[in-house]
Structures are given as C-alpha cells and as structure tokens.
C-alpha cells in the first residue's frame, strides 16, 4: 500500500474522486465550524455590548471621570463699619499625590535636601493620606511655603513626580491679638474633630482643611464654611487630568457683619495694656456687642496653618493665661457693682424707700455680740446714709441692712432678672454662667441652710457670687435701658440675613425708681463724693457708673487689707460698670481689672477711654452726616432733577 501512496497520480479516477470528496467533505465541516464559531463571537459581543452595555458604561465612566471636591471660600468678617477683621489670603502648600509616588520615604529624603520637611509634617501627611479621599487627590505635606521654598521646589519639580505646589486661601487676621478671643481662629482639622464628623459633614469638608476652633469662627463655622463644590475631571489611566467636564461651583461661606466697632475695640484693648482684665461694651438699644476685649491676648494667625510646639507651649504655660477669654470665661465676684440693681429692687419691694436712712458706724452686726460685717470705710459714711449716698459712696453697711430687710428670697429674683447666674446666650462658644446663689442652690450644692450672713455677703457682691464681665455688661445695659434685657450678640448680619435679637426679659420698675438709682449712679462719676469722680475731668457727656472691688482672698475678721503683706496676684480685683450718656444711654460697659485693687483708680479710667472713643466716633459720624447733607444742599438743581425723575 505505501507504494500506492507514492504514486497517487497514477491512481484510478474513482479513487482520486473519492479522496477529493473526503477533503471536500471535511472542508464543508470546517466551514460549518467557522460559521458556528463566528456565531459564538457575535453572541459574545452582543451580550457584552447590548445586554451588559449599561454596566460597562458605568465602569468606563468610573474609570475616566474623577470627581474632585472644590473648597468654598470662607466667609469674611467685618466690623460695624465694614472694616475687614478676618480675611482670606493666598497661601502655597506643598502637596503630594501618593498614587504617583513609588517610594514615599525616598521622596521625603529627597525633599529634605531641598527644603525643610519636619517629621510632624510627615506624620500629618500620613494621617491625611490614610483618610478616605478620592484617588489622585493631592495631599498636603508642608503648609504655608515661603517664596524661597516655592522657588526651590519649582526648580526641582521635574525630578519630583507627584509633587505639586498648590495655592489655597487661608485665614488672615489683620488685627491679630486685638480680636483674638472674640473672633477666634481657624486651625487644621484634627483627628478628634474628624472622628466627630458624620458622613455628610465629611463631604462638606472634603476640600477644606481648616475649621473654626474658638470664638465666632467656631460659633458660625457652618455659615462661614459655605458649601463644597465639585469638578468632574476626565483623567487618563495615569491619573493626569485632561479636561474639566463639568463644574459645580462651591457656594462661598456667608460673611459676618458685626456690631463690634474696631476703633472701640482698639480703645478698650489699649486701655487694658499692662493689665490682666476684660472690657465688654454693649449697645444699649440692641444688645449688640460693641467691644469685647480680653487682656493679655495672642496672635491668632499663629494657629491658622498650625502653631509650632514652642509657640503653643509659651502661650499655654504663661501665668497670665493669654489664651483665656476673660470676657466670658473668667468669673469674678462683682463686688459693689451689684449695688444699683439691689437698690432698685429694694425700692420696688417697698422695704426701703428714697427716704430710708441708716446709721453707718463702719460695720454691721446681725445681732449683739455676733461677728462684725465691715464697711470698706473704717469709720463709716455717717449717721444718715440714704440709698443715693450709699450708691455714690458705695456704702456697704446700707446694703447689709437692705439685705436683711430683703432676705435672699427677694434678692435672688432681682439679680436673676438682670441675667446673673445664667448664660447670657452670646454667640461666642464656651461662655460660663457665673453663680448667683439662692437658698435652693445652697441646699443642693453645699447641703447647708441659708444663713442671714450669706445675704449680707451677696449684697456687696461677695461670698459665693461670681459673674463674668459679659454678665456685668448685660446687667448694666439692662439697667441703662430701664429694664430691656437682650441676649448680647456680636453678629448683626449673617450673609444677607439681618439678625435682631428680641429682649429676653423685662425688668419692671417704676419710672421714679429707675430715675432715682440712675441719678445715684451719675453722681458716682459726677458727684463730689462719687467713688469714680476721678474720671470726670473734661467729660463732655454724662456717665452713670458704679465701682466695685472684689476680694481675691478672704480677709480674716478684725484684720485690715494690707497690700504690702499679700502678693500682687492676690490684690483685689477692680471693677467698674457704666453707661453713657446718663440721660439717654447708648452704650453700657463693664470693666474688670484683675488685681487692680480699686474700681475707681484702675477700672474707671479704662471705661473713660472707651466712652471717649465712642463719643469721638459718634461725633465723627455726625459730622460726616452733617457735611454730606451740606453737599447735597449745595446742588439743589441735581436734587430737583432726581425728584422729578422719581415722580415720573
């Protein structure tokens, strides 16, 4: 048979034909196979391209479209005259796109040869990197680059793939320490804050690295923040953004317009120079806070891009507590500054009257043989002390008598109506409530009954009584407005929305009684024997006030206060509350000078400076209005034309 194979060309026709048909038959089978396999391929493509089309469109879009959050611009903060108090300035930061860097540690070493990258920068970077974030999103490594650093990075950028210099807007406080406590500051979002975020909040901060930490920045954080925007970027497989497909613009944060007056604030803060203390000034008619100064202060700009350890340590360990907002967090015994409202309360109850006179031998005794409650004046204020004199000269004995007549159950509501012992509700966080004691309070917290002697201490603002400077200012403003107590507030306008606070309480008293106590307070400043007469020289307006002195340490019975024997930090605090003009009050304030010893000599002059500044400002404003009126009358023709146009 192999022989046959070798000579196939000589095989028979039949054989040849048979063999040809074998191949042709197989060709046919193969052709059918080809058709079937082509059918398989077409079916496969049909399934992928028609049946699962939507799935793959989604996958393809997810591949190429990257959504990047866009940070909103933080709202600005203005004073009542439109002066910018918190601004946004451009800052440049060094960011790294982790996905583009093969070896991060090698990169840090390389970067350190060019600019200084601290281990804490690297720590923070690693934390940020591990946060949930969109792929290929730059992660900040070093913040607030100097121009020199930017130049060095730019020169080397070609050999540092994945490293970028990014511009961002960061907070800038042009008036620095002047407003540090009130406006507060923003700082980098820390781990604790981040943990507290829910999913929505996380989204809101997806492009923002700062958050308000204290002050107005914290209180109005959500309004100032704005709403995050987004960019839809088409990126290639290497993560390089090629074009922006769509943009949802971020909504800028809302601006804050404050009641606060920068010039007044400046006057208040400067008057406090060299002291530890606080000043709060309130607009009597609205409850708007005109000035709110705490001394000593600090530069809030230090915190914005992350404060250095040494700077923070210096601030935090200072004995003068510069980080402490004394206006709302410090609680002082109010001393004699309570006398006007207690006097008013006494008159209203009818337990004393304008004609009530007492004998003041320089002390008061609840009963024969018991302890002596001393007046600050060793030999007393005379035999016929009435309420007017008691306020003007700050006679303690009169108020001891009043306390006995009123009792704590009558005294407590008086102070409560003026806001003592409660949060004032100011729009700055971390306010403390002070302490305005009552029978119930003592029972609950001290597990002791109320003793008559406690009332005596309360009547001169000592004992358990504690107030914040803000509370004193609110009390004073309430008094000045003859009973309208407002929630004090800094923000007058939030974005376009005007904020008006309704009164929270109304203290009712007869017109005569208001006038009586008002006169007495006026004579504190303007009277010949007024305790604050030292500030009345050259006053062009009338001030009603009350001095106060608060003991820091208890003085033992039968011993005198001797400043030389106690350390300066234990000297008495000096207080002064006042409003002006006395007959038509516009501004009310409270001043506390720690260890200032006498309200008259330390605190009252601070108040005078603030008032002077206020009336200068007012005078300037009036002059300006006057001159602008003049200008308009100088062009009657123009005015007529405008009128005629309106009439059309």
């Amino acid at each position, binding site marked *: 048979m192999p022989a046959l194979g070798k000579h196939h060309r000589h095989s028979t026709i039949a054989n040849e034909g048979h063999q040809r048909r074998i191949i042709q038959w*197989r060709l046919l089978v193969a052709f059918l196979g080809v058709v079937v396999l082509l059918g398989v391929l077409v079916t496969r493509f049909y399934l992928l391209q028609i049946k699962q089309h939507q*799935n793959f469109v989604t996958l393809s879009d997810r591949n190429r479209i990257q959504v990047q959050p866009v940070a909103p611009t933080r709202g600005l903060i203005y004073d009542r005259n439109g002066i910018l108090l918190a601004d946004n300035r451009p800052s440049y930061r060094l960011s790294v796109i982790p996905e583009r860097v093969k070896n991060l540690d090698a990169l840090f070493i390389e970067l350190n040869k060019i600019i200084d990258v601290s281990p804490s920068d690297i720590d923070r970077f690693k934390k940020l990197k591990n946060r949930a974030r969109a792929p290929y999103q730059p992660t900040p490594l070093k913040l607030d680059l100097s121009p020199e650093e930017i130049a060095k990075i730019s020169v080397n950028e070609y050999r540092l793939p994945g490293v970028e210099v990014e511009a961002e807007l960061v907070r800038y406080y042009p008036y620095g320490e002047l407003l540090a406590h009130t406006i507060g500051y923003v700082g980098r979002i820390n781990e604790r804050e981040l943990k507290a975020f829910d999913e929505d909040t996380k989204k809101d901060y997806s492009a923002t690295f700062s958050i308000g930490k204290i002050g107005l920045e914290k209180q109005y954080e959500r309004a100032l923040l704005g709403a995050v925007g987004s960019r839809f970027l088409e990126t290639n497989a290497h993560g390089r953004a090629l074009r922006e497909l769509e943009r949802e613009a971020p909504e800028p944060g809302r601006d804050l317009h404050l009641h606060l007056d920068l010039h007044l604030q400046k006057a208040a803060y400067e008057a406090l120079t060299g002291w530890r203390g606080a000043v709060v000034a309130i607009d009597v008619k609205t409850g708007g806070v005109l000035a709110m100064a705490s001394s000593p202060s600090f530069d809030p700009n230090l915190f914005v891009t992350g404060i250095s350890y040494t700077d923070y340590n210096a601030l935090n360990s200072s004995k003068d507590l510069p980080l402490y907002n004394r206006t709302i967090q410090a609680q002082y015994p109010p001393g004699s500054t309570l006398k006007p409202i207690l006097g008013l309360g006494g008159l209203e109850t009818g337990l004393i009257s304008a004609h009530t006179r007492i004998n003041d031998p320089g002390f008061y005794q609840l009963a024969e043989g018991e302890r002596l409650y001393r007046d600050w004046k060793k030999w007393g204020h005379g035999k016929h002390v009435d309420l007017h004199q008691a306020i003007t000269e700050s006679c303690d004995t009169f108020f001891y008598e009043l306390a006995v007549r009123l009792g704590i159950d009558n005294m407590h509501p008086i102070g409560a109506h003026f806001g003592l012992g409660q949060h004032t509700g100011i729009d700055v966080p971390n306010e403390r409530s002070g302490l305005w004691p009552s029978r119930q309070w003592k029972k609950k917290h001290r597990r002791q009954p109320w003793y008559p002697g406690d009332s005596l201490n309360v009547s001169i603002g000592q004992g358990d009584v504690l107030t914040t400077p803000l509370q004193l200012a609110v009390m004073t403003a309430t008094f000045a407005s003859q009973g309208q107590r407002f929630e004090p507030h800094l923000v007058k306008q939030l974005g376009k929305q005007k904020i008006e606070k309704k009164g929270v309480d109304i203290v009712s008293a007869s017109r005569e009684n208001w006038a009586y106590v008002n006169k007495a307070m006026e004579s504190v400043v303007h009277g010949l024997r007024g305790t604050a007469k030292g500030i009345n020289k050259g006053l062009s307006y009338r001030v009603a006030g009350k001095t106060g002195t608060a003991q820091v340490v208890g003085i033992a019975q039968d011993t005198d206060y001797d400043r030389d024997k106690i350390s300066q930090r234990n000297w008495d605090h000096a207080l002064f509350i006042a409003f002006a003009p006395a007959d038509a009050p516009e501004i009310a304030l409270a001043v506390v000078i720690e260890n200032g010893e006498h309200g008259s000599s330390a605190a009252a002059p601070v108040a005078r400076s603030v008032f002077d500044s206020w009336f200068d400002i007012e005078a300037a404003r009036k002059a300006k209005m006057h001159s602008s009126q003049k200008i308009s009358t100088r062009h009657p023709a123009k005015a007529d034309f405008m009128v005629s146009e309106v009439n059309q």
Partner: protein
Amino acid sequence: MKMHGGRDFVRHMPGSTQTFKKGESFWRIVHVDPWLLLALLILTGTGLSILYSASGTSEFMIKRQIIFFSIAYIGMFAIAQCPVNFLERSGKWLYVFGIVLLILVLLIGVGAKGAQRWLSLGFIRFQPAEILKLAMPLCVAAYLGSRALPPKLKHIGGCLALVALPALLIFKQPDLGTAILVTASGLIALFLAGLSWRYILGSLLLVVVASWPMWNFVMHDYQKQRVLTLLNPEADRLGSGWNIIQSKTAIGSGGLEGKGWMQGTQSQLDFLPESHTDFIIAVLAEEFGLKGVVLLLSLYGIIVARGLMIAWRAQNHFGRLLAGSVTLTFFVYVFVNVGMVSGILPVVGVPLPLVSLGGTSLVTLMAGFGLLMAVATEPKKTQTQT
C-alpha cells in the same frame, strides 16, 4: 519553472469544454484571486484606520504599518506566481530551514521580557517561528497529499512528529500564541486529510482523562496557579485580569453604535492596554460598537469562505490541504484573538491578523494568502491526466 501566457494556455487546451471569460483569464495570468484581493484590501484599510485611532494618531506607527503592508503585498504577489508543484517540493526544505533557525534561537537568540524569540543578523532581527507558519502547512500538506487518504496510522504518527518538533521548540521560547498557531495549521491539514473521527474523539478523551493525574500529581502549585490565571484572568485583577477587565469595559461601553472614531475613552485615555496590538478589536468595539464588530467579523468570514472555496476547487490534494490549512489557520488566528479579548478564551498573545500593529507577522500572513492565490490560479494542466 513553466510560465503560461494566456494564449498559450488556450492553445494548449483545444479540446476543453471549459472556456474562460476574458477577465478571469487576466487574473489567472497575474496569479491573483480578485475576490480575495478585494477583501484583503478592505480589511487592510479598515485595519489602518482602527490602528490610527488606537495608536493615538501616531503617524509613525501608521507609516511603519503601511511599509510592512507594502512588503507583505509584494511578498504575496511574488509567492502567488510560484507553480504549485514547486511549492509542494520546496515545503520540506523550508521546514528543515525553519527548524534549524528555531534551534539557533534557543541557543543564540535574543529577546525581551523573558522570552527568546528573535535571531539577530546585526542589522535586522526576525522571528524564525514565523517561517514555520508557512513551512508547516506546506510540509504537512505535501506529506499527506502524496499519500492515500484518509491517512494511515503511521502517516498520522509521522504527521504528528512533523507538528510536534517545531511546536515544542516555539513553546520553549516561550511563545504560546505562535506555538498554538503552528500546531493548529498542522493539525488542520491532518483533519482535512480525513483523519478518522474515532482518532479525533479518542485523543480529545485522552486529553481530558490525562489532565486529571497531571493536575493532581505532576504539576506544582505555581504551575497550577499559572494555568488558573490563564483560564480565569479576571481573578488576577491587577495583573493579567486588568487587561481583560479593561478590554471588556471598552467593548461593553461601546454599545450598538459605538462612541465614534477616536472617541473611545478606554482606548484614548490609555485604560486599555496593548490597544494597538493584541487588544485592538476592543478599540473597534468601543468606537464602532456591535455594528463595527459584526462588519469586521463578516469581512473575516468572507475571506475564510473564499479561502475554503479555493481549497474546494483546488486541483490536487496538496492544493486542497494547503489552501484549507492556511485559510483555517487564519480563522484560528481571528477566533483566538477575538475570543481572548472578549474574555471567552485565555490570554495567549495572538494579534488580530492584518489589523494589529505587526511587522514580520503581516508578511507571513500575506505570504499565506500568496499560497492561496497560487493554488487558486493553478493552470488546469492535470485535467487530461485524470
């Protein structure tokens, strides 16, 4: 070598009942099959336009591809001129030449990415495996065509030996894709020669049965892993799975109409790997949709059908087996590539014929069509002998 002019041809066949139309005789003179040529030209043009998009409008790549096509077409025409019996005689020498070069590749070859596939002649590098793509069908067709059909067991054995030697040498480089194609071309010839169905089914059964002890007792874990990855690339999402996921995404997102020429996001934005070589049909599928895919597959179908028709009409066993083997191997090329890109076959590295960017592979593919044309236009000289 006998060259026949048209007139001579007619004059030599006075008694023939068949008369040739004038056009047909022209194509026979120039040894070109017009329908096949037309289909190839359309495919080449389509391929270039897809490549233009897939390469990111790289003029360099297009120019390079055009140059290779020119060489390939010239090569095709040249081979088409060869008399069939010359091809039959020279097959074995080409085969031996190819084997020698393959051995040289293993000894002194150069390569990249862990594979040693090229021989360097200093100024030019080429893959000897490409020679086998032509030598294998030639040699097997000659071997089987000169013997009685269906082949006897010992001829089947001889044939398998002819297939196995180069296949193993190529597999060793390693170049799985080419090894499969070369093996396929030999086995297809054997199949067409009438290999008994009993043998076919029997050997398939043997493979299935043998794979079980191989898997359980012979293969190492890493080898198993490699096989598993080959069979299910999507399990390896970042490695070879990445390619297949991206190519399926490209295909699927194309839909019925496609995203438009040069508008495919997967390919244009570099998500699709190997978009101008092995995965080029994903570019077509993304940009022209299912319609484009069906058109392209139809074009391939037409070429295959024409090739099989040539095999059907061939005048001797050698011609039939050669034409059938070349044509069906071409289809295996298409099926393996398209199946691999669309995720129904393992990724083995086979380009889409005449569309993927290629150099020598274009030349060998077109040389294969040259063989087809030689068979198609063979003068009907043996009619009197039968």
